[in-house]
């Protein structure tokens, strides 16, 4: 049928078929369905653009406000200065103390989380009965779901007093208690991702190792862990990046004293805690204090982005693919 004939038959039917009989013109239907398809596709691709806009928005906001900050402070002074004193005169805007604070707490968290997380992953993947794993794995993941303010409260009111009993010179606000609690918080990140990587190692590799006379421990540490190494390393990097970006635990428990000291029992201020604490005070819009939020935020964003990209690259490039 040519289109003309089709619409002829539709016109013919229009007079014959009584309205309300349920008959609908197939051409009109087809057109409507096509239009709806195009509409839905357009809307959905529009939704997908939001995620790109979010990234563009973050970068633009950070760069624009930080740019006006850097008209007052030179980039060199910011990146390499060892004094962060935005509130007192003479002001000083060296970001290194905040960066050191973030790295110190994240390193402490890594010392707690990486060995415990990896050992848990080995246990869950290589030793635990499937029924035990089915209970323990989600229970561990609850640790990642506890709100960070609750961890902060716990660090301040439980862990810090404990530390002060052991080392009486510990400050009320200190890096160690924040680091310990943060380390516990990121255990499931390490253990879950590492366990996934180890579970993906094929059974044949394990059986080959057993056939050569290896013990269970040797199979786990010399066959499975090396085979899953890319996933394990990626989980480590991701966990440290999470620790650097964590805000509430350090804001509550680590203090507000920027310092270059490496003593974990002293108060430290991290980049995130500085941003949070400054935003609560009334930093006037457009003032240099307000702009520091964006300059420090840009530093934080750059550090965590770099680590996340490295983690994804490690996964991609060094993954051993087993079929």
């Amino acid at each position: 049928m040519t289109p003309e004939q089709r619409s002829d038959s539709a016109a013919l039917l229009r007079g014959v078929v009584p309205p309300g009989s349920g008959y609908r013109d197939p051409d009109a239907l087809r057109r409507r369905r096509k239009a709806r398809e195009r509409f839905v596709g357009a809307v959905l691709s529009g939704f997908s653009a939001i995620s790109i806009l979010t990234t563009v928005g973050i970068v633009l906001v950070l760069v624009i406000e930080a740019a006006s900050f850097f008209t007052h402070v030179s980039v060199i002074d910011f990146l390499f200065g060892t004094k962060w004193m935005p509130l007192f005169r003479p002001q000083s805007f060296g970001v290194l103390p905040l960066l050191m604070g973030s790295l110190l707490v994240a390193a402490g968290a890594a010392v707690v989380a990486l060995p415990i997380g990896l050992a848990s992953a080995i246990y869950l993947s290589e030793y635990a009965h499937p029924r035990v794993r089915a209970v323990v794995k989600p229970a561990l993941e609850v640790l990642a779901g506890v709100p960070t303010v609750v961890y902060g409260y716990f660090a301040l009111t439980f862990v810090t007093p404990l530390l002060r009993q052991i080392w009486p010179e510990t400050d009320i606000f200190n890096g160690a208690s924040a680091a310990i609690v943060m380390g516990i918080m990121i255990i499931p990140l390490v253990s879950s991702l590492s366990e996934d990587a180890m579970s993906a190692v094929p059974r044949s590799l394990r059986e080959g190792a057993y056939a050569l006379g290896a013990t269970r421990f040797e199979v786990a540490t010399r066959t499975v862990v090396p085979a899953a190494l890319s996933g394990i390393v990626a989980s480590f990097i991701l966990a440290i990046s999470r620790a650097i970006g964590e805000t509430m635990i350090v804001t509550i428990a680590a203090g507000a004293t920027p310092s270059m000291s490496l003593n974990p029992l002293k108060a430290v201020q991290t980049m995130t805690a500085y941003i949070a604490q400054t935003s609560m005070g009334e930093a006037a819009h457009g003032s240099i204090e307000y702009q520091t939020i964006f300059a420090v935020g840009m530093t934080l964003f750059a550090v965590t982005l770099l680590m996340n990209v490295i983690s994804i690259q490690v996964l991609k490039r060094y993954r051993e693919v087993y079929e």
Partner: protein
Amino acid sequence: MSAQATARHPSAQRDPSRFEPRISRRHHVGSIAMVLFLAATLVGLVFLVILLVDIWHDGAHRLTADFLRNPPSRLTSRAGIWPALVGSVWVLVLTAVVAFPLGVGTAIWLEEYAPNNRLTGIIEANIANLAGVPSIVYGILGLAVFVRALAMGRSVIAGALTLALLILPVVIIASQEAIRAVPNSMRLGSYALGATRWETIRHHVLPHAMPGILTGTILALSRAVGEAAPLLLVGAVGFVQFAPRGLQDAFTVIPIQIFNWTSRPQAEFQELAAAGSIVLLVLLLAMNAVAILLRNRYAKRR
């Protein structure tokens, strides 16, 4: 030659070319290691139990009907969490309303519509990276875009939009996984009967993927409900006496209220913080229970 020689002379034990099984010693090392692995696994669980017991011990006696009904107060005996509780529910609902359609829509587009080209690859990599951006950076974005540029002020809607952007990548990734798990035969069957792409998605793919999508979304929302850092920047600070009644109202949420209480030195306020933590944990537990129930219900209907 030398291996044969050592085999004949048991005194030459130190020959490195000779394999010595020492099996009992290796098993010994193995069992010590197993105990250590088990202990490491228990560390996390024990810590979780201590945390919960400690918070219950500190805060349970503050949990009264008045605590749930009252606004915060300088008098710790009369202080309550009502405005923060209502604020959290507002933020939860608004965040869900924004993030759910955007997240699921993006996931559908990426899985069912997007051409397999570089742009799609960039969008996916971008989403993976967004999931790793610290939450406080989203707060900075919310402060600059919603609070200032769009002049929403320190309002519920500015907070909810910020949190929606924060959880969007998580919702997208969870939805993508759920959609990917729908067997292709369902799509082909639907197309064979003459359905269009959208009809196939609406009537077959989405209903099948819905349990996974809902579970992922609720887990993402429970992250939003526990977040405090980005909302500090968007302005949910301080001492809000009244529950919000509209999108433009000032607000606070439970985590911010807890933070507010922890930052006071007096022990009574710390107890209030613990009591607030219990309320927050119960809310999160309820949300997770809903996620599991929804998943089971959908799974049965399938």
